[in-house]
């Protein structure tokens, strides 16, 4: 990253206003297990919807956040927070078992190989995705994606240097938002940039 990019990221990081989704009466679900519990509770107790409960505690920049109310009688609200300390999880299996799988990735294997990456780069790619996603989320450089029983997904642009030829390639990756500044990779390459960004 050059000096100009560094300055731009620093400016964004310090100028963003952050909000946290609050669903009163339930605790944020920091783990997949707690998210599952919230989904079950949301299904059993009609006054709580899974979307709201899974959003509880999730952090967004103010201008790129889902907007309550999500439904009739929704009692969720956004609370201003000073910032986040992002935690990013990027499973290596999403590369070794999907992107570089002959029969699962739907042409993405060929695309990554045309850029010079193959299955032995899975760990390196996971680390690079982690680094870029952490910086992108922290600086608010993400796009809001779909929201359903699984919670809110966001898209983040990843840029990699070509190992074959020169220059870089940029593509969209998909992430699930968890409470307190945590995001987990769902799709290494897939989806489109939503207009809500």
């Amino acid at each position, binding site marked *: 990253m050059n000096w100009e990019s560094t300055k731009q990221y620093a400016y964004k990081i310090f100028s963003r206003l952050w909000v946290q989704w609050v669903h009163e009466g339930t605790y944020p679900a920091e783990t997949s297990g707690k998210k599952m519990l919230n989904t079950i509770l949301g299904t059993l107790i009609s006054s709580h919807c899974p979307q709201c409960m899974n959003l509880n505690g999730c952090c967004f920049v103010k201008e790129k956040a889902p907007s309550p109310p999500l439904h009739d009688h929704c009692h969720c609200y956004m609370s201003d927070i000073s910032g986040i300390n992002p935690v990013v999880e990027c499973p290596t299996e999403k590369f070794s078992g*999907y992107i570089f799988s002959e029969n699962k990735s*739907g042409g993405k294997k060929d*695309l990554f190989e045309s850029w010079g990456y193959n299955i032995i780069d899975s760990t390196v790619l996971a680390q690079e995705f982690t680094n870029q996603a952490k910086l992108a989320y922290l600086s608010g450089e993400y796009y809001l994606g779909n929201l359903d029983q699984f919670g809110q*997904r966001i898209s983040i642009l990843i840029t990699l240097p070509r190992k074959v030829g020169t220059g870089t390639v940029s*593509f*969209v990756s998909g992430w699930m938002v968890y409470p307190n500044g945590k995001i987990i990779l769902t*799709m290494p390459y897939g989806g489109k940039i939503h207009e809500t960004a």
Partner: protein
Amino acid sequence: MKQLDRVRLIRERAAYTQAGVKAGDTGIVMGENRCGYCLVYFDGEIVLRDGIYQTSEIDLAVREEDLALLEE
């Protein structure tokens, strides 16, 4: 269903239709089974738009009983 399983949608529901998915569409499970729902990315095409590689895949929470496992 587990992560990275290839699946086919075998039932139509309003939520699926609204998202642009119909019975017979295939995809891959990219999220853990949660209360009977799977996070499925339905197959799409690779698109290069404004210098950014994107896809027309649709990510959607789908009831597990509405999916059939595809043999690999």
